[in-house]
Each structure stands twice: as C-alpha cells, then as structure tokens.
C-alpha cells in the first residue's frame, strides 16, 4: 500500500495543487469539527428538548415560565442576559396558573439577602449584573393572599398579608429553580413546581386571572401532581 506522502512525491505540479487544495479543505473541516466539539452536547440536548417559544410570546422576561432559565442564560451557551438565579411561582400543585407579586427572598452563604417580585406570568430572575449570590443559599417565597372575593388580604393597618413558603433544603449550585422544581411534577427526583397554595387552600386563597396585558403565556398542562 502507498501512503499519501508517496503519492505526493511523484505528483505533477497541477496534481500537487489539487492535493494542497484538498488538504486545505480537510484542514478547514477538521478545524470546524474541533471548534464544534467545544459545545456541550448534554446541555444542547436539554435545550432542544424544551422546544420552541410559545406562540405569540417573544423571548424576554415573560417567556418560558417554569422552564430551567439558566440552561440557556448561563456561561454556556451564553444567552444574554446571564442569570444568577431564576424561576417561576405558580398558584398550586395541580395547575400552571402563575402568581404575580410573590416576593422571592434569597439568603446566601455570605449573609447577603436578595429580594425579587414575580411578574404577571410568575417569572422572577436576578441577572448576574444585579446580583451575585454565593452558593449555597436558602430561599423563601412570600405569596400574596386574597379573600374569596378576589380582594387582597390585609392586616388591620392595611398592609398586605403574605404567606411564607420556605425551602426545606438549600440550593447548592443550580441557578435554575426548575432544575429541581420541574414541570413534570412530583417525582422521585423532583419536588414539583414552586407553588403558593395547597389544593385545599386554592378555594380560600384564589389567585386572580392572568392580566390581559401580560405578554406571557403559562406552560401547557402536562399532568398534575397530587397534594
């Protein structure tokens, strides 16, 4: 058998030019493969599995409620803005009805406290520019409460009454709340999505419908977790 090098030794000038061209094309292809190899196929597959945007919802603060935000908004693949922590608060464990105005409070490992309110589709997030919480951190959600007639509950001084839901464990390193609080509901490896009401509380603390002006849409119903 002859090697490419022995071919090259006996080649004419034109054939040599062809060889160089083919070698060049090969080098470009190899470079492409090497550069392409810098990606993370596991994360790529997870992002792919999320599917496209909901119809009529543009990428932004109201998109993809309940999905693991930092899967994209992270160092890899680097979707702007990079998120420090992000998630979504829903009304109960059986629906994807969002809760607007819930206060998410994060207590980090070095004593910093961060607060954020959920928007009309239940999303909340801290960009890396606004917060740099140090892992591990504890999180609690202060859910707004409502009377059965839909008016906000207040104390005698007129201050709104919140219901506190605190995490039983801390967040060790995932910037996406949905990394553990997945939309699949309660499983052996997921505690289900973040919610304010138990099923029993849903009637006594009804959350208002999504504002008509809200630019987001809730996730599609994919099954219900039990209470």
């Amino acid at each position: 058998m002859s090697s490419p090098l022995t071919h090259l030794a006996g080649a004419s000038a034109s054939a040599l030019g062809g060889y160089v061209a083919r070698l060049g094309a090969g080098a470009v292809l190899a470079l492409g493969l090497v550069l392409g190899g810098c990606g993370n196929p596991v994360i790529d597959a997870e992002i792919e599995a999320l599917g496209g945007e909901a119809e009529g919802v543009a990428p932004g603060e109201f998109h993809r409620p309940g999905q693991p935000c930092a899967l994209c908004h992270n160092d890899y693949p680097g979707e702007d803005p990079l998120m420090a922590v992000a998630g979504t608060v829903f009304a109960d464990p059986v629906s994807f009805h969002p809760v607007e105005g819930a206060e998410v409070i994060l207590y980090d490992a070095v004593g910093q406290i961060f607060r954020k309110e959920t928007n009309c589709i239940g999303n909340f997030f801290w960009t890396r520019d606004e917060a740099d919480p140090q892992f591990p951190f504890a999180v609690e959600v202060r859910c707004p409460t409502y009377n059965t007639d839909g008016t906000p509950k207040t104390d005698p001084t007129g201050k709104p009454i919140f219901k506190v839901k605190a995490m039983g464990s801390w967040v060790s390193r995932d910037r996406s709340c949905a990394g553990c609080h997945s939309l699949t509901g309660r499983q052996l490896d997921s505690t289900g999505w973040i919610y304010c009401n138990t099923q029993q509380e849903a009637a006594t603390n009804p959350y208002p419908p999504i504002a008509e002006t809200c630019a987001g849409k809730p996730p599609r119903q994919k099954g219900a977790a039990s209470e």
Partner: protein
Amino acid sequence: MKRRALAVFALVLGALPLGQAACVPETTITDAICPPYEDFKKVSPVLEQRCGTLDCHGQVSRPLRLYSNLGLRLPGIDEPENGYFPGGTVPTVEQEIEANYRAVCGLEPEIITDVVNGAAEPTDLTLVRKPRLTEKHKGGRIWDEGKAGDRCLVAWLKADYAPGTFNDGDCKAALGVDSEQ
C-alpha cells in the same frame, strides 16, 4: 485477494489485545472494609443535608449518589402520591441510608479499607478532600478542616471506636442540632 489479506490482518490485530488480556494474572478479590454501618446512620444525615440536594449528589449520575428526604428518593420504596418525593412527608428510609453507605464505601474501597486499618490517612480519601476543597470540587467548599461536619466524617472514617458507640456530637452540631454550625 488484497481485501482478504487486509481482513485477516485486521482480525489478527483485533485479536492481539484479547490474547494479551488473557495473560494478565487473575487479581485477588478481597472484601473492602468500611467503618461500621450502625454508626454511619449518624453521619448520613450530615451528608444528606450538606451534599445530597437534587442539584448536587442527589442525582443518579453521581458516583457519590445520595438518597434522602431532602433530595433524590430511592426507587421501589413508595410512591410520590404518598409523600415519597424530595421534601415530602416520608423521612429518609433505612434502605436509602444503606444505599448511601454503599455509595460512600464504594467510592474508593481500597483506600477506605486502609483508612480503617490505619494504613492510610482520611485525607487520602477524595471523600474528605473534596468538601474541604483541597481537591477540585464543583460544589465548592462545603466545610473547612476541623469544622463539625468534617470532624463527624473523619472520626467515623477512622473507626477507632467500638461499633455502635460512635460519638455523634459533631454530626449533630453539623446539622445545627447543637450550637456549633
């Protein structure tokens, strides 16, 4: 003809490593010795709390895979509908602690055997180095050397106590049951 010669050459080449492997002497299989299981029950809650959250070692893909009420649940025990899910009403069950014990002991079985026998130091174990961050650890520093969690783990690993008599004061302290965190 040329193709057949190539195929034979490839076959011979492929068979070479097999032949070589057959020449490797049989290894002697010995039992790994791990610190007592009954005392691990006092250590497991510390690992569950500090290492076993769903976003760290509470994942099936981890070599040190930890099960608990605070994280991943062991399959085949109960159903999520009955409160058997991360953070649910069912506390960590015995089978989960046993699985944690196997994970801890199975990480570096030869070295943990040497540690129990006094032939190696606890710091020879990656299990001790990683939480101290003296070895690269994606989860960062969990505790410094000499802190309650570290003392709890290291003392259990040294196994210089009669089985069942391990003093769990440091483990309780690490869990925040006592004053020291």
